[in-house]
């Protein structure tokens, strides 16, 4: 899936383990991914369950957050991860914008990645809310995606570009 980081198409260095990977044997799935030494994105709830084990390697650890997660727990672990993926389940759901703002203003300096329903017309809003990486579905990606960030060159809000 195409990934834009800081306006440029980039190779995804991260592996995201989804719910199916954990459902059979979560412990085994985590052990396996740790052995592979992959940079891995864990759902927030999974991360919290295996926090002791996973927090040892912040450089290779990321979490996936949704609007339904317990967001207060997120602010405590910002130093333990280097990537926070925030899910936009549907177009109408704008919680991710505020989640991004919340983690960046608390000093998180790693990658804040938008995943899910991510497409051209919201990229600028996402960037201005604190995202610096955007995972766009194949069928919604076009090579002019970076132009989304320059359509509006003035804005009234204090900017939170990263």
């Amino acid at each position, binding site marked *: 899936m195409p990934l834009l980081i800081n306006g440029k198409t980039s190779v995804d260095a991260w592996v995201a383990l989804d719910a199916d990977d954990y459902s059979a044997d979560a412990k085994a799935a985590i052990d396996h991914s740790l052995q592979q030494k992959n940079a891995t994105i864990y759902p927030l709830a999974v991360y919290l369950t295996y926090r002791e084990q996973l927090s040892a390697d912040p450089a290779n650890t990321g979490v996936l957050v949704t609007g339904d997660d317990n*967001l207060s727990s997120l602010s405590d672990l910002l130093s333990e991860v280097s990537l926070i993926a925030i899910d936009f389940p549907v*177009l109408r759901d704008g919680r991710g*914008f*505020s989640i991004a*703002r919340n983690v960046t203003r608390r000093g998180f300096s790693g990658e804040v990645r938008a995943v899910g329903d991510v497409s051209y017309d919201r990229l600028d809003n996402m960037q201005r809310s604190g995202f610096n990486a955007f995972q766009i579905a194949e069928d919604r990606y076009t090579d002019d995606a970076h132009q989304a960030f320059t359509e509006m060159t*003035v804005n009234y809000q204090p900017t939170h570009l990263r």
Partner: protein
Amino acid sequence: MYLYNNDDQQLVDERVEQYRDQTNRFLAGTLPEDEFLALRLMNGLYVQRQAPMLRVAIPYGLMSSVQLRKLAEISRKYDRNYAHFTTRTNLQFNWPKLEEVPDILAELASVQMHAIQTSGNCIRNTTTDPYSGVYKGEVEDPRPYCEIIRQWSTLHPEFAYLPRKFKIAVTAGPDDRAASRVHDIGLHLVKKASGEVGFEVIVGGGLGRTPIIGKVIKEFLPVEHLRSYLDAILRVYNLNGRRDNKYKARIKILVKAFGIEKMAALVEEEWLDFTKDSDLLLSTAEINKFKSYFTPVDYDLNAKNELDLSAAFAKSQTFEAWYKRNTVEHKVAGYRIAVISLKPLLLPPGDVTDLQMDLIADLADQYSFGEIRSTHDQNLVLADVKVSQLYDLWVALSAANLARANIDTLTDMICCPGFEFCALANAETIPIAEQINRKFDDLDYLYDLGDIQLNISGCINACGHHHVADIGILGVDRKGENFYQFTLGGSSKTDASLGKTIGKALAAGEVANTVEKILHVFVQNRVEDESFREVIKRIGLEPFKEYVYATSH
């Protein structure tokens, strides 16, 4: 009024081109329909029963004669020579073509106007008192703060996909002419004994399916914290408002679920921890910059010497009636606030033709410093008219069917466009307004009744504000036939309250007769000059129910 600087202009110009590109991609089939829907709504474009509808923002109800002339021109060039003013002081075009909307937006941008956030689940146009800056009882002119809110909320990146739409109204003082207590946020300018000015902040009001009067979340917010506190409320709402059911997604439902104490605590925490002392804090210099756009106009100090209208009254009783009903005391001696009635006999409430718009623009230039305001009650206001020029103004308005002397009377109705124009409506409203107009054409009778607010909504979404009227009428559909349900005793003013239903819905043909019965009970029970509201408070609804639903009289 506020004048765009280069950045303001660039923003609306770029927004036009951005929207043009979105429209082109939609027409080319590369932008999916559900995505375009969200994008076009955020730019005021609905697709209605018969045609698209474009809603243009009139920020806090203030426009210049140049802008009004442009709106007239647009109605001629792209629409059917008329437009409609809404209860949120915006203007709607009912017949634009979807593919021409980018051109309309470019025309609007040429006179510092736009349609940004006039619909969609975002922060809508801020509304305020139409008598701002000229009314004797105000604490301060609220418009500088409205402009601050406009700028903060315009294309706010974080709050463009809220759980639901979000409306803010600001009052100038204790009198509420903006229905602030039925808004998502109501801001009331208040002054402490020390002279410090701030806002009483109300949250969680609203109409629709679940009408609720807003509650106080902060008793006194110093003005410099306006932006930072609003930002905190919006973030708490964006993260916690319900996303699973659009009928339960407004902030009023969240406030109800949390309770006002918990809501206030969450907002306070967000505010103190992050936003209060952030770059959202307003400096005195910044506030003064906004105030400088709304300084008093250059009044003629000799105007106070020409106050005698007895000769004009002798010439025309109709003028005298208009003066009494449609003009309001001004804070500068020798001037009056003149209300232009958009509630003529037998025409849709709030509608204006292109020629009327042109005329009003000319009259504003001639008599009122070139500015026009739109009101929550769907009328227009010329705020600074010399007493000595009122007669000439009235003559000109009369000739254009704009001088019906009915402000705040029964026929000064708030009415949504109804079934004919709105895809959501279940029932017709404009024919009902007509029916009432025909029945109550006797102005002397209306004047005897005094101030009465009658509001009509064509569906439960309540755009016609039927819950907060003395007499509220809600249209419902029963197997293809329209019926109308009456609620009595509501108010959107300082003593805001929700009306109560008096019984089963009645047939369309019975509406005006029912209003007559309600008024009969009022007149029978009225002591001296009691208002409708006072009578309801004193005697309750029972006598009205009994009389309306009695089998025979």
